[in-house]
């Protein structure tokens, strides 16, 4: 067996176990999809650093780790108090909680009367493969995009399904809360979220990832989003996994004409974090905003890959990622913008700025613009560096101590993304974590 195939072995064993437990459902359309995805996974294998998309990202620790999948929901029942820390100060939200990848109805809060909204989990739908939302997502075949998405699809068991009907504005945020309990060591979970925003409709989705303990585990998650014509989705994604965890997440967004998608992706946790967000602007007049904030310390590896596909004319995209790295943390940012030949009048702006607060922190930042149309405006910029000395001096000259001046400027740097987060309670939570890291970790700002 080739060296690279050794890493696939445990997943083959897991898949056999999984199929064994499925009795009778092996012929279902869902399982057909799983099989196709698993075959795909086996044929492409895990990515390696010879591939452009993974050039700077060493995932060997993840590949070499042994994981234990769980094919049934947790025996341990959590109480509301156990998850309080993850509820953003009792944010008033429609709430779907997933524990170790499985829907936990006792912890979830749904307004059943909300007739304009279908909100449930895979495991709750009977014959859900017949549902219209499923067929839409089946057509996307995202498992062909990437090995981790294929793996997620192969082990697809549960996750959130959100459908906002046409002509509907949902005011309350919808919180998809994914928690790993660390009940057993080396858990692996495959959460899958599907979000469908109907025509002329709007919603705010908050997708968060937390854990109850500091052990090693692996979250491999995929979120598929469809924003119909003239729809509007505000998507907040917050990753605050254990510092020993591995987190691989992909978000696939398909936008129809005149739709808006606004993403704020916040990354604090995990030993290795890789998040891919791709938006396909499949219609004229679309607007996509991808904002991100990442903060790494210790030996964290934090990788953000984005891809915006300008497939049609008159679309705008705005992208702003801000990173703060200290200790030996390693950041990777890759922002690809594809402007196809027909996509005239495209306006695309991208920036990635990264603060390196220690000598050993490093960032690989790579904007990639592929432009095949001639009447477009595309700009990108990347800055890497330390805090501005003149700004530090300015604050000090007003009586603010050097360390505090640096903290204020670091905070201000992050604030440029934080202020765009649509939900106040989440902004406050992110502020709190940021400030705690700045003052409690004395090494954080050197």
């Amino acid at each position: 067996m080739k060296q690279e195939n050794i890493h696939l072995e445990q997943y083959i064993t897991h898949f056999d176990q999984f199929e064994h437990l499925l009795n009778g459902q092996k012929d279902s359309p869902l399982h057909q999809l799983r099989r196709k995805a698993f075959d795909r996974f086996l044929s492409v294998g895990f990515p390696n650093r010879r591939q452009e998309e993974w050039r700077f990202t060493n995932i060997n620790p993840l590949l070499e780790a042994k994981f234990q999948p769980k094919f049934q929901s947790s025996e341990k029942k959590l109480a509301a108090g156990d998850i309080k820390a993850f509820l953003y100060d009792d944010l008033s939200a429609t709430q779907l909680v997933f524990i170790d990848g499985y829907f936990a109805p006792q912890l979830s809060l749904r307004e059943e009367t909300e007739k304009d909204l279908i909100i449930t989990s895979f495991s709750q739908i009977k014959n859900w493969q017949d549902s219209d939302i499923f067929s839409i997502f089946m057509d996307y075949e995202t498992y062909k995009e990437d090995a981790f998405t294929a793996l997620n699809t192969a082990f697809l068991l549960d996750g959130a399904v959100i459908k906002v009907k046409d002509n509907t504005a949902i005011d309350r945020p919808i919180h998809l809360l994914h928690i790993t309990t660390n009940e057993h060591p080396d858990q692996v979970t495959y959460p899958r979220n599907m979000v469908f925003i109907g025509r002329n409709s709007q919603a705010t989705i908050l997708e968060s990832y937390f854990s109850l303990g500091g052990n090693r585990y692996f979250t491999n998650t995929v979120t598929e989003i469809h924003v119909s014509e003239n729809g509007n989705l505000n998507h907040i994604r917050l990753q605050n996994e254990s510092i020993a965890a591995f987190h691989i997440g992909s978000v696939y967004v398909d936008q129809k004409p005149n739709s808006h998608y606004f993403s704020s992706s916040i990354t604090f946790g995990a030993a290795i974090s890789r998040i891919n967000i791709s938006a396909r602007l499949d219609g004229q007049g679309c607007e996509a905003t991808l904002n991100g904030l990442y903060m790494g310390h210790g030996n964290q590896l934090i990788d953000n890959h984005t891809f915006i596909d300008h497939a049609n004319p008159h679309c705008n995209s705005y992208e702003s990622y801000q990173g703060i790295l200290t200790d030996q943390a390693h950041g990777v940012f890759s922002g690809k913008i594809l402007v196809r030949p027909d996509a005239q009048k495209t306006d695309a702006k991208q920036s990635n700025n990264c603060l390196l607060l220690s000598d050993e922190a490093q960032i690989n930042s790579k904007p990639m613009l592929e432009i095949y149309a001639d009447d477009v405006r595309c700009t990108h910029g990347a800055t890497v560096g330390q805090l501005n000395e003149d700004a530090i001096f300015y604050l000090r000259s007003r009586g603010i101590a050097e360390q505090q001046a640096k903290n204020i400027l670091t905070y201000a740097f992050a604030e440029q993304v934080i202020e765009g987060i649509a939900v106040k309670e989440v902004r406050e939570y992110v502020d709190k974590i940021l400030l705690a890291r700045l003052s409690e970790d004395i090494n954080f700002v050197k």
Partner: protein
Amino acid sequence: MLEIKNLHATIEGNEILKGIDLQVNVGEIHAIMGPNGSGKSTLANVLAGKEDYEVQQGSVLYEGQDLLEMSPEDRARHGLFLAFQYPVEIPGVSNSYFLKTALNEKRKFQGLEEIDAADFLILLKQKAKIVEMDQALLNRPLNEGFSGGEKKRNEIFQMAILDPKLAILDETDSGLDIDALKIVANGVNSLRSSQNAFIVVTHYQRLLQYIVPDFVHVLYNGKIVRSGGKELAYELEEKGYDWLKE
């Protein structure tokens, strides 16, 4: 209050200040004039503690203490204030949050309690009036997107809030139209008292029509080459700086 003796300073190996002597007493306004490149801004920055400059020789006593030994923040807490020639834009930090932090640092140093939020608001409004600051600027990020005049006015506004003992104005008049210049000058005049002192660094005599100095010093090539009363400023206005080169 301030006693500068034989001050020599370099930046990146170039000697800019070549032996400055200057004494400033409480209640006085000193103007420092001179052509571009004479060392005026260097002097202002060395006094405020900018680390890019290296002091080779000389001493600076501020209220009897060795100023050069103090960190920039300590100088500020002891009542020294520099109004910058080019105030830095700081996105993400609101003007009023910044001022409150600065004021509280000073109060802490003086052994006072942090200022109460309501009292701070009153203080802001009261001082904003002095420099005719648009209230909207208070909640904007510090200097971000401010016009040149707004930035300079914001410097004087900060000075009014922090109430320094010794204020150094580094070319605060440059780039201001006459109305803005008058506002800035009015701000300084209203803060002037027998308890504080000002050093006004300027290229032009124009500002000194509105802020009347007790002493005028001409800085040229890193040295004070002439000192006199306010009439020296008028003389410079007439003769320009060319006579210095002869």
